[in-house]
């Protein structure tokens, strides 16, 4: 069969394959430069680590039609105000702990991970911690001994003992506080946050 129609020509499709791939790659690289700048810690969408010194809450933005994070006044973590370097070190410890303890094979962070346990994107703002004044301590105690502090809401599904030290638990809490201030385009939608004790 020597009369292959033009649209079935091997050569033509080889060229298309190469050009389309190259074109898409160039666009992806271009967008990546832009996105990486916009998600670097300290940008509008992803705050600097010293946001752990501030109150974090959400308001509805009608124009974007979604909840967006607002950084409020001072709200020291564990009674302390951190320098940017100290804050970064603490959040880094927390992030390392979440990796070393493999949290993401039970939980989701930013909605990615496993589906055996609650999403932790806004765990810092969860109503389950009761009141703002006791939250930090409750979180540390929970992480250090999830068996004794289990809730499970009737499922019996408990978080295991992961050997988290107090120092690591504080790092994790700082990491969770920082993560709750990331602008996630309204995910998870309709999240019902903890009662704010004194709105700024």
């Amino acid at each position: 069969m020597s009369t292959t129609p033009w649209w079935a020509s091997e050569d033509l499709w080889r060229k298309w394959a190469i050009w389309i791939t190259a074109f898409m790659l160039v666009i992806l690289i271009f967008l990546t430069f832009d996105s990486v700048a916009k998600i670097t810690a300290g940008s509008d969408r992803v705050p600097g680590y010293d946001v752990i010194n501030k109150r974090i809450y959400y308001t509805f933005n009608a124009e974007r039609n979604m909840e967006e994070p607002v950084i409020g006044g001072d709200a020291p973590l564990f009674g302390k105000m951190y320098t940017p370097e100290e804050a970064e070190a603490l959040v880094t410890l927390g992030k390392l702990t979440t990796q070393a303890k493999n949290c993401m094979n039970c939980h989701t962070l930013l909605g990615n991970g496993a589906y055996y346990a609650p999403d932790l994107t806004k765990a810092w703002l969860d109503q389950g911690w009761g009141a703002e004044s006791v939250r930090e301590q409750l979180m540390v105690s929970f992480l250090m001994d999830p068996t004794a502090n289990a809730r499970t809401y009737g499922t019996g599904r408990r978080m295991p003992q992961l050997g988290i030290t107090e120092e690591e638990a504080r790092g994790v809490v700082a990491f969770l506080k920082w993560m709750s201030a990331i602008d996630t385009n309204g995910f998870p939608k309709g999240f019902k946050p903890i009662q704010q004790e004194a709105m700024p």
Partner: protein
Amino acid sequence: MSIGTFDSSNLDAGQKVAVKYFSVAIVLFVAQILFGLLAGIQFIAPDFLYNVLDFNVNRMVHINAMIVWMLFGFIGSVYWLVEDESGVPLVGAKLANLNFWIFTTAVVVVVLVYLFVQVGPGTQSSIWLINEGREYIEAPRWADIGIVVCMLIFFYNVAATFMKGKWSGISGVLVLDLVALAGLYLAGMFFTANISMDQYWWWWVIHLWVEATWEVLVGCIMAWGLMKTLGARRKIVTTWLYIEVALMFGSGILGLGHHYFWIGTPEYWFTIGGFFSALEPIPLVAMVVHAVYDSGVHRFRNGNHPALAWLIAHAFGNFFGAGVWGFMHTLPQINLYTHGTQWTASHGHLAFFGAYATIIIAVMYLAVQKWRGGVWMSGDMPGNGWKWKWSFALLNIGVVGMTVALLIAGYEQSFIERALEGSTWAGYFAGQTQPWFIQGMEWRMLFGWVTAAGIVLLVWDLATIGRGETRTAINPAVSGEPATAAA
């Protein structure tokens, strides 16, 4: 040369390496299923192995064993076809063997550490030595570096062999794709405290693997497989391969944006990710058309019935698991509610099984056929081929059953936890305690046992099919050489 028994003199040097990789792949596949069962049981009976072998450990072994057995399956497949496709003996066969043993030893060490050390303190040394705590690429950093080295050696074998022999459209695409596949792995090898940045690059590895480079790799294997099983013409399969590359990379590269809706990345990804990922099913339809059309043209006359059945299962599984199940939750308007729920798990199971497990199994059937001296594997096998037919049925029914069960659970979870309860701790459990969710988990378990029965039969069949057979295989005419021909 002998027929009816496993005799490595029936294989060329590349194929001798391939069957080693396939053997380890099968062992890891069994491990994947075992640990999947343990994790599934924990959804129903959470006290089971609590504080001994927790859900995160079981799940990590489940999905990491999957990634590694599939990589082993792909590497094996490429070693399998490299001499046939290049026309010359494998370059660096000794090195290839050594590489296999190093790679396998590393995998064993990694798994033992997962199981017996499990977690470490929040330090860099934990992620260098124990596990990195990042889904699918949990392997500790030392192993990452090892994997890269092993992939380079593998790449050397393949590229050098083609360079010495002849190139073809298939081998050209294959080699370029392997470069991209290995290169992408580097995007997952760094630590950052910034979870948004972490997820941004993590998806480069995961998405650009399964929705771009792996798809093209199996496209190459499929093209070669259709020539071998059916005797399809090279010019036709090569043209199709280019079309698939154009469509798959054309949609899949920017389709990456469907993972950038909620991780802190800008809003333009809604449009880009939604649009391009919605196009991703198109190449998958094209592949179905291609496979079914070719089979029809050749009237399904072929020398290896199990392999052809699995190739067709691949075409449909890829289309439904990736194309349809992926499309269902890929638009941001829907993904806002389904993101990170059992919907995702439903899609993940059907897609990985349908697109990748199937085609590797097909190549394994081609491998055992030749290993036994090119035995008869068409109709009229002893026992009417009941083992391969039953394992085929049980595996497919099992995975489809799990997929449907998880989808129902996922619907329920999206409604209750995501839409009504606002995804809090209490809201999460409000979803998990709904009767329909619980039933979904129970049905998943039931179909999980069906899947497990299927894999037992599969292993048995691969080990015994063609034993004592004296007839040689059908030669699928045209360009397909007889499976008995020594390379």
